[in-house]
């Protein structure tokens, strides 16, 4: 009975005419995409864009089975996956983020981590906070004689993918022993579910270090280490340094690229785009136009919501390429 009563009030009249677009995929950009959905609905009430975070893997699967109008993924799509979509695929980089080393060491601020130390911590070879690999580059900090507790993502995630991809690029040993993927098996540490799980692990236990998305570290007041980039400089994780990394990226034709080990002097080393997955052909013209309108708005006006939520706005050069790709959709 409840159900029947509820169905009656289920469909407020004003929303009956709206064009519905549904998407699903990556968890990391979900807050921004959902914000876009709400904000765009204010600008253009005739379109409702509904995005749900189910994870990049499920996002790609849903996109391939065609149960959504668009997908989203931190790892884009592989050529093999793209080949299976008969309607064709257009990859659009929509926003970007950076991954930070968040740590909890009472009284220690401004920690610097060398490339050697980063890999060593996750390989389990750097066991104490006063290990020479860390101490060497932090002469001003009195590091405690404490075990390094390592926190990692227990769930599969684009964050782990980008993070391990970087470590594998800078350390041969890491590449050999652990490799990179959306979920890998670290020889040390404890797994937290989601960014929030790792954040909680770091926050609750002194001596813990973990990798999380920038927004989580900022909003939870975690200390973030400056990381050594390819040029040898220690770069702090702020959106400006992240934007520098992205601006230097050279795009291939399919727009699928990772700045695995960026070379610029002020580039923050671990940053990545995240992609919207669109079909090349849409049968429903009204839906196609609404979707194209939304994505175009997101690439331009929508970018201004990125910084406050902890994302890196796309550099103008990238927006141009993305818009060109968007125009190819029929």
């Amino acid at each position, binding site marked *: 009975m409840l159900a029947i009563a509820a169905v009656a009030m289920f469909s407020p009249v004003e929303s009956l005419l709206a064009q519905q677009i549904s998407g699903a995929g990556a*968890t990391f950009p979900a807050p921004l995409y959902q914000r876009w959905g709400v904000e765009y609905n204010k600008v253009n009430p005739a379109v409702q864009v509904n995005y749900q975070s*189910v*994870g*990049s*893997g*499920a996002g*790609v*699967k849903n996109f391939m089975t065609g149960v959504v109008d668009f997908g989203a993924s931190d790892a884009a799509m592989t050529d093999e996956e793209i080949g299976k979509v008969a309607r064709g695929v257009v990859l659009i980089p929509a926003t970007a983020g950076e991954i930070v080393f968040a740590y909890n060491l009472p009284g220690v601020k401004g920690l610097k981590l060398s490339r050697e130390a980063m890999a060593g911590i996750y390989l389990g070879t750097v066991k104490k906070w006063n290990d020479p690999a860390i101490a060497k580059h932090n002469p001003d900090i009195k590091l405690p004689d404490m*075990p390094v*507790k390592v926190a990692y993502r*227990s*769930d*599969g*995630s*684009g964050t782990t993918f980008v993070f391990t991809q970087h470590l594998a690029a800078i350390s041969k040993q890491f590449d050999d022993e652990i*490799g*990179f*993927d*959306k*979920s*890998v*098996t670290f020889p040390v540490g*404890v*797994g*937290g*579910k989601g960014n929030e*799980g790792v954040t*909680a*692990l770091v926050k*609750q*236990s002194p001596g813990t270090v973990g990798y999380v998305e920038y927004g989580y570290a900022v909003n939870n007041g975690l200390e973030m280490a400056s990381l050594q980039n390819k040029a040898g400089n220690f770069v702090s994780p702020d959106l400006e340094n992240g934007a520098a990394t992205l601006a230097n990226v050279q795009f291939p034709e399919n727009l699928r690229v990772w700045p695995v080990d960026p070379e610029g002097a002020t580039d923050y080393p671990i940053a990545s785009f995240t992609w919207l997955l669109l079909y090349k052909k849409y049968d429903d013209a009204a839906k196609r136009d609404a979707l194209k309108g939304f994505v175009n708005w997101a690439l331009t006006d929508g970018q201004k919501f990125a910084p406050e939520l902890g994302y890196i706005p796309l550099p103008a050069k990238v927006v141009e390429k993305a818009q060109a790709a968007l125009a190819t959709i029929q």
Partner: protein
Amino acid sequence: MASPNESTLQVGRRLPDLFRILCWIAGAGVVLVLGWIIVEIAQSAWPAISKFGLEFLSNSAWVPNRERFGVFPFIIGTISSSAIAMLFAFPLGLAIAIFLSEDFLPLPVRQTVRFVVEMLAAIPSVVYGLWGIFVVIPIVKTIGDWTTERFGTVPIFEGPTYGNSLLTASLVLALMILPTLTAISRNALAAVPPALREGAYALGATRWEAILGVILPTAAPGVVAATILALGRAMGETMAVAMLIGNSSRPSWSIFAPSGTLAGLLANQFGEASGLQVNSLMYAALILVVITLGVNLVGEWVLRVTRRRTEGIR
């Protein structure tokens, strides 16, 4: 004029048969649903089953990027976390069930207790997880540090203590299965015919002699059913466990070390899995179902034994 009367009469006569058939269909439907689910799971698991075979059960490595999959640590974690949870929950659940069906304290107090226990069933799994993070983890860490310092040489108390550990997950699980355990046990106790109790009193038994000697044995099948139901729930519980157990695939004896469960593994990796990893996760799900089957068979056996013993009473 007679025809409508006759037809209603016929419907009336047929109704019992119709009802019986309906009940049969419902029963058959339930069996079919499980069959269907298992076929779905087995189908998606098949590539992993044919590739890894039974080694999947004994292999400890879960390395998605190298396509090496084994669930031994997760099987151990599933069994030990629900067993430890039951260790805590069973005495508590039974105590509450007895407490609720006896008159130790006035009715309003008992009603409040029952009300609170029932509220527990309504709390979403995620909230249990959050509560565990904020409340249980600090407590477990304190207890763990104290214990590992003194009894660290005993394998199950080995340090270092992690907040996200087997014990944390088990404690929260114990609480989560309490409403199921309590509600069904209480119904079973309440269903014991009053005459039995009166008989025991008449023979000079004290209240607890009556409870332990007559009422509990009579209610045993119901209590066992409650335990199995609760155990099934504990083993299948996903979100809260995934948030608290630390999700490690490194086997450890210590209750203060991170562990992992099959359901937690699914919750963690299903969303981002692809290819053989999906198949392996489905294989893991299949194993979980088989373990529940095992528990139920044991439960069934216990039930039969207790029934035989109390046959005369019912």
